[in-house]
């Protein structure tokens, strides 16, 4: 059971931290981009969305080049005592980068969908710009943002390629569920592999259902919902 419990808890820990980081960074970046008036902003958006398009192993490689001991920032990180390669923090870094675009895109769309008239109303009523963000913009965008955050969590939970590159496969320390499954298959241990796959699937389903409940309902009052019913084109009976 240890073979299942340890990777499961590690996966949840890594995915949890990665999603928290992404919720903050993604929302901030999305808000900044949505308010930015410049043609450069689409370029910046594209660059920030790259992790979604690049193969995870390529991403892992880039991260390694940046934070590895001989990497661009590696030496500096080493000096201040931060170790990322072969640590769970490195796994968090990999998962964060990989899932970031999911929050960014959802949040940006959500922010751009907020009625500007409402923000203007708040302005005229004297509320500061920061106040407007927390009292009007964010609550109205919350539904879209939440959907993005849930996706990001699921992606982080299943992250494999980049994690393997940066954090390696150290049992108990960086061997997340996906990596554990990979190792079990490599070693020909189908029983463990099957068990791990089952646990991962069940966990993901439970999480998605819970997350679905937590997503706030649509901002009230966007018109009446059309109710489909069994239509009839001819009179019934006499």
């Amino acid at each position: 059971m240890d073979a299942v419990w340890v990777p499961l808890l590690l996966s949840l820990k890594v995915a949890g931290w990665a999603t928290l980081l992404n919720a903050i960074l993604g929302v901030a970046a999305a808000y900044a981009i949505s308010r930015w008036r410049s043609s450069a902003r689409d370029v910046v958006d594209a660059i920030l969305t790259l992790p979604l398009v690049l193969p995870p192993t390529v991403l892992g490689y880039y991260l390694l080049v940046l934070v590895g001991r001989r990497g661009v920032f590696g030496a500096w990180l080493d000096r201040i005592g931060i170790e990322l390669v072969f640590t769970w923090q490195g796994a968090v870094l990999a998962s964060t980068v990989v899932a970031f675009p999911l929050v960014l895109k959802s949040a940006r769309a959500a922010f751009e969908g907020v009625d500007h008239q409402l923000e203007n109303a708040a302005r005229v009523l004297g509320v500061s710009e920061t106040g407007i963000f927390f009292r009007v913009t964010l609550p109205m965008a919350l539904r879209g943002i939440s959907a993005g955050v849930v996706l990001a969590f699921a992606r982080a939970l299943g992250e494999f390629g980049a994690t393997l590159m940066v954090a390696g496969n150290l049992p108990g320390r960086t061997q997340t569920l996906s990596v554990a499954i990979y190792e079990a298959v490599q070693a020909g241990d189908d029983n463990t592999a099957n068990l791990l796959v089952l646990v991962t699937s069940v966990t993901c389903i439970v999480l998605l259902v819970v997350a679905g409940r937590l997503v706030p309902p649509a901002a009230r009052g966007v018109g009446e919902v059309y109710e489909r019913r069994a239509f009839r084109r001819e009179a019934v009976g006499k």
Partner: protein
Amino acid sequence: MSMQITIRKRLVSRDRQFALDIGFESDSHRIAMFGPSGSGKTLTLRAIAGLLAPESGRIVLNGRTLFDSESGIDLPPQERRVAYLFQDYALFPHLTVAQNIAFGLNHGWRNPRRRELPPEAAHWVDAFGLREIVNQYPSEISGGQKQRVALARALAPKPDIVLLDEPFSALDPALRTRMREELLSLQANLEVPMVVISHDPQDVEILGDHVLEIREGRIFGSGTGKRHPPVYAPLPAHVA
């Protein structure tokens, strides 16, 4: 209450060009701006509220300069103490009626609590008979109620002036008549000056002491009292 306004702005959208060139002065508490759709009425109100930046001009209310392109003054909307009633009310859908009305009383980061009603807000809730719907959401109330909530929200922070953008356009004629009378008595009881814009001549007749006719971005009719400027008169010279 005195008001001196000059606003000049060019707007370009795709292949359309629109030039706003407004200038007028008034000492009246009840100003009505009258003109067809697309004539620039809403743009004028937005400029006064600070939501639109003129290219040049001056906006002075009661001796207080809100905008002056020559001296570089441009107050943000938050500081203008101007109330704005939007054409479609712009009520916050995620807040209750009570929270909407109390919204402008606190300029910080937190919304008013759902169960509390500050006294300034309570005063308007009672004045407009909104007690019963105080905990409802905007999607659950009628058009007339929405209008009153929007008005209460605008008045609660004690503004220096209230701008009303086609306040009755979404209401049926009977309701419109009643609301017009309510607004009339409100105008009589409050010291707050109002600027109403409308394309309905009756609104103008009842609610305006100083009537400005606006067409294609310029003012070319200005009258006081019960004079009716002719509807859609031919274009004369610019009147200051």
